């Protein structure tokens, strides 16, 4: 367990709702949920969530900290925004799901092998490197995220699609070396670093 996680457990004791309100993106909306279940019924991947959003909201109020933060549930969000537009209380559910996933990651207690967790991290690392997404490396890293042997298998399975993309000019081998980038990489990186520091001071610094 990370120091930050231990610190947060100490700080908030049995009040997980308060912890979420203070530290999770849009977390102060959680208490507004009236348990109607429209979000859960509207989710395209609904059947695959261990705990659909409405359940997560009640679990937060019930103080089920580990069950929520270690859950694979919020990593099932496809960002379709169906729940947001249908919620009678207008909770920004999509953002709360992203916020819970990010907070769990910040604490180091997220389900590490969960595929969307892995892909989402790859995506961030990819864009943070040059300021723009390198689709070729994103694909390569994705296929090989579970090791080399597994990667070869996945890559072989995807070869047809990759070839189609190459032939239609929608994938470029030029991206292997260098590739698209912002010009002011220095300023870009300094900006991200500053934003991360400010956010860390707000969340981690509240210990």
């Amino acid at each position, binding site marked *: 367990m990370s120091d930050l996680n231990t610190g947060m457990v100490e700080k908030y004791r049995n009040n997980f709702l308060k912890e979420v309100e203070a530290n999770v*993106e849009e977390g102060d909306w959680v208490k507004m949920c009236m348990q109607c279940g429209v979000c859960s019924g509207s989710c*395209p*991947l609904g059947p*695959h969530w261990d705990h659909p959003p409405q359940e997560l909201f009640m679990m937060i109020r019930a103080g089920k900290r580990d069950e929520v933060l270690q859950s694979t549930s919020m990593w*099932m969000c*496809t*960002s*379709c*925004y*169906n729940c*947001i*537009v249908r919620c009678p209380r207008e909770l920004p559910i*999509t953002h709360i799901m*992203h*916020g819970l*996933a*990010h907070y769990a*990651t*910040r604490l180091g207690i*997220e389900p590490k092998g969960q*595929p*969307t*967790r892995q*892909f*989402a*991290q790859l*995506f*961030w*690392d990819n*864009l*943070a490197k040059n*300021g723009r*997404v390198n*689709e070729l490396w994103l694909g390569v890293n*994705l296929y090989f995220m579970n090791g080399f042997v597994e990667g070869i298998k996945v890559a072989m399975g995807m070869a*047809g*699609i990759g070839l*189609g*993309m190459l*032939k*239609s*000019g*929608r*994938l*470029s081998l030029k*991206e292997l070396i260098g590739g*698209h980038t*912002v010009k*002011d990489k220095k*300023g*870009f990186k*300094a*900006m*991200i670093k*500053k*934003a*991360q520091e*400010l*956010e860390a001071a707000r*969340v981690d610094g509240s210990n």
Partner: protein
Amino acid sequence: MATKEYSFYPGCSSQEGASSSNYLKSVQSMCDVLDIKLNVIPDWNCCSASIGYCGGGELPRLALSARNIALSEQHNAGQDIVATCAACWLATKETQERLDDDAGLMDETNQALAEAGLKLKNDNKIRHMVEVLIEDVGYEEMGKHVKKPLDGIKIAGYVGCQTNRPFGIEGESFENPKYLDKFIETMGAEPVENYDKKVSCCGGALAFSEPEKSQALIKDIIEAAYDGGADMIVTPCPVCQMNVEVYQDKINAKYGTKFNIPVTYYSTLMSVAYGKNGKESGLNGQIIKAKQLEEIAAK
């Protein structure tokens, strides 16, 4: 009519050799006909779409879009920001809204931007290209430029998620927006009536990380198009386009279906109907060839 000018945010997938480079091509051809000038935001960066949340927290993600908006204010002053990608539009618009609502976040965002020598005022309008077409050009004007009506093609207008929710298009409903059908009609083609999966999710970025779950969603989207008698599917979103087009072989292998339906952008239709050739319309970017459009473009 006078030239319309916008500050343009093309986004990562529109770049040369990227997955929706064909979208950009057709948009350029369409804008050329409609006398729309797109001024690219110099040195724009990725918006982190809707999947950057794991590594990027709230503020770093807001800073990404804020940098683009600030660059636009600096270089394309006074111009509305226009995006063609659903995720780019959504992330930028969300950032504008969040920062408008929260003075504390706005202050921190400007502290981060200062590291890149930028400052955000946040008073630009953020718009999707389809809004420009509907609101600034209008269906009548869009129709006036049609040289080769797309007669005899039946098309399922697949709006998808992020061009539709949470912001959507003014005057349209979330559950059954009509604008894409009107685009199809205006170009002389026939829209599928009551297309069942018009606003259903294709899995988005999870098509990469949860391929089987997403392909089950994509299967339903394609099946409903066939059920409505569609010859092809058209969409305003790069992720929708890619997901619905490229996995058809995989879905066929798994489910025993025989899907082989082309998926293009609204701008592809418009470019062809406006008399541009196949290459100018981005038709060479199709993995599943849009043969009917190719024939019209070659005429």
